[in-house]
């Protein structure tokens, strides 16, 4: 497309054309109205002048006869800017007046007539236009009194010229304005288009140029940029997930395959096959769990799982999980305690439960692992689940007395599949903390990992439900600290 072609296709230019047309029509109709009115006014004026002259002459005729009339007409014809006069005999001979040739038959009419005529004394034979009044006198002679319409014609000409010029000026200025605005817009749109096509080619890090004026295009560009940021974030997340799936699911898949191959090659008889198949199922169950966790994290991170939000008490979640995990902890030689105070929040209860469950499972796993290392077995190692409100946050935390996570590793610990050196020997997919972190982020909160000296305190800090602060205790009589 040529530059001009592009220009005339811009919205700004098209709008300009529409406005232009409207303004031209407006100007034309205004001037038309003006011209028509002027013409009417001039005609009225002429009629009045002619009428007064006419009755004057009639008066003279009735008082002084034909002679007096002829004399008066000769006299009046000589005045500058005189009216048109003509007196003819019943046979059509001109007796007096300043009018030369008239179209034949004109004089036979009575009353007002608009007619062409030629002046008597003038050299030019060009016909002029006049408005005349004709009447028959009592002696059969005919009298014509009229006025030239040149003036009316001239005024009309002036108005027409004004109309032409104004329309021309409107069109020229309008077009120039349209081109100016259109090109300005076009330049910016072109820049945006160029950027977006680069983005479409795959460079998601590109951003649209945003001007300083804060106009609608800037706002649009700004919004698009934010959308791009979100898309880039999602794409990065997706890529990470697929990378992780490729990297970390391939290992157990390979193991699965090797085991099946080995069983096929070496096993004899049904028991061998049965054992291998059972192992295979177990391994694939583990894979499915890992896969589910990955999907869940991806969904939580992309903000998709926020659909089923409800109001609930974090304390109930804490107590419920305590109840669920208490026997498990006890079997592992740990004491699982819960300290829960009412703390209402709004969110996806299932996801938050699962996030907290992951923290509890981690705490039990690592708390147990550290148990034999403790020098002072005076009190059994303990895991504490807490729920409380602090400021505008609801804190759900799990504290263990295990080895903790060194300061330097804490950030890394929430990444997918990261299993810190110290925990390599423990079973697990390495997704627990990253899921908890994703769930916290989904609820506009965060996962904090702190040193509990000894041990680790993992806290889900999630914005509390507003309006539930001081009255928290009384509004939930059914909840009570355990």
């Amino acid at each position, binding site marked *: 497309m040529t530059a001009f072609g592009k220009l005339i296709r811009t919205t700004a230019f098209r709008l300009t054309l529409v406005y232009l047309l409207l303004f031209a029509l407006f100007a034309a109709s205004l001037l038309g109205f003006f011209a028509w009115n002027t013409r009417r006014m001039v005609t009225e004026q002429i009629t009045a002048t002619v009428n007064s002259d006419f009755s004057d002459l009639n008066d003279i005729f009735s008082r002084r006869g034909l002679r007096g009339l002829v004399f008066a007409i000769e006299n009046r014809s000589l005045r500058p800017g005189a009216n048109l006069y003509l007196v003819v005999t019943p046979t059509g001979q001109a007796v007096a007046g300043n009018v030369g040739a008239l179209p034949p038959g004109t004089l036979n009419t009575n009353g007002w007539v608009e007619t062409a005529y030629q002046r008597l004394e003038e050299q030019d034979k060009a016909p002029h236009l006049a408005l005349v009044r004709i009447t028959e006198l009592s002696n059969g002679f005919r009298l014509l009194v009229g006025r030239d319409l040149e003036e009316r014609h001239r005024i009309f000409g002036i108005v027409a010229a004004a109309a032409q010029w104004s329309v021309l000026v409107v069109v020229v200025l309008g077009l120039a304005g349209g081109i100016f605005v259109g090109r300005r817009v076009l330049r910016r749109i072109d820049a945006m288009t160029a950027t977006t096509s680069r983005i479409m080619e795959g460079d998601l890090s590109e951003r649209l140029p945003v001007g300083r004026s804060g106009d609608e295009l800037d706002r649009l560009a700004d919004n698009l940029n934010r959308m791009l940021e979100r898309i880039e974030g999602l794409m990065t997340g997706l890529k990470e997930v697929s990378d992780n799936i490729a990297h970390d699911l391939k290992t157990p898949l390979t193991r699965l395959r090797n085991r099946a191959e080995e069983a096929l090659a070496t096993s004899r008889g049904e028991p061998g096959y049965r054992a291998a198949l*059972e192992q295979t*199922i177990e391994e*694939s*169950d583990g894979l*499915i*769990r890992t896969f*589910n966790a990955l*999907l*869940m994290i991806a*969904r939580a991170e992309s903000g*998709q*799982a926020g*659909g*089923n939000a409800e109001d609930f008490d974090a304390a109930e979640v804490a107590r*419920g999980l305590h*109840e*669920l*995990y208490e*026997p*498990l902890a006890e*079997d592992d030689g740990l004491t699982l305690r819960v300290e829960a105070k009412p703390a209402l929040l709004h969110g*996806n209860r*299932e*996801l938050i*439960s*699962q996030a907290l*469950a*992951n923290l509890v*499972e981690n705490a*039990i*796993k690592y708390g147990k692992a550290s148990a034999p290392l403790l020098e002072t077995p005076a009190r059994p190692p303990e895991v504490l689940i807490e729920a409380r409100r602090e400021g505008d946050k609801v804190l759900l935390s799990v504290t263990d007395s295990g080895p903790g996570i060194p300061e330097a590793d804490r950030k890394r610990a929430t990444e997918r599949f990261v299993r810190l050196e110290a925990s390599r020997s423990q*079973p*697990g*997919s390495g997704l*627990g903390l990253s899921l908890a972190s994703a769930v916290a982020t989904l609820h506009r909160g965060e996962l904090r990992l702190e040193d509990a000296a000894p041990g680790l305190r993992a806290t889900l800090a999630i914005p509390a439900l507003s309006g539930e602060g001081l009255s928290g205790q009384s509004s939930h009589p059914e909840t009570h600290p355990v």
Partner: protein
Amino acid sequence: MRLLIIEDDRESADYLAKAFREVGHVADLASDGEEGLSMADSGDYDVLVIDRMLPKRDGLSVIGTLREKGNRTPALILSALGQVDDRIKGLRAGGDDYLPKPYAFAELLARVEVLSRRHGGPAEDTLYRVGDLELDRLSHRVTRGKEELTLQPREFRLLEYLMKHAGQVVTRTMLLENVWDYHFDPQTNVIDVHISRLRSKIDKGFDRPLLHTIRGAGYMIRDGIR
């Protein structure tokens, strides 16, 4: 039990039908939503197993249409979509149970059997009895033989659920969903620990165990061998 499996993947459908037939059920197949709807509408099935995503008409719409027509055949939704939102959507649409893919057949079988029993089964009894074990749902008393057993509230609910489905396999996820109302996979054997506690209370010291572990599937409470 007569089952209708609505699943567009030929191989999975054949596998399911074969597996259900092997355990003594009758299984019909439909390969798209429209066919499934007309078969479910006309046939007399005990349970419908419906894939979430089907050609011509998706699974949720099949269930929704059936429910509108007053057909209350229990329906289990199979879905490859994510768990949290999707399960709720499925249940809202009129599904009775939800199982995310991939699943173990034992899990599906256990759920389908529970569903078929729920449908048209007798009204909920107030007294459950398995062998000499009795659970009174009104007074919350549990006795075995002449001995009264003391159970924690959660142990009581666990036993209640197991006894309600006596003779049927219940899986760990079913227990977690129905007794605790959690819908995630714990990475630990947390359910097994609860079961072993319950077992030590109801079976320890009695010569005939009632609470059995079904390998690769879950648990079952029953008296002797069926």
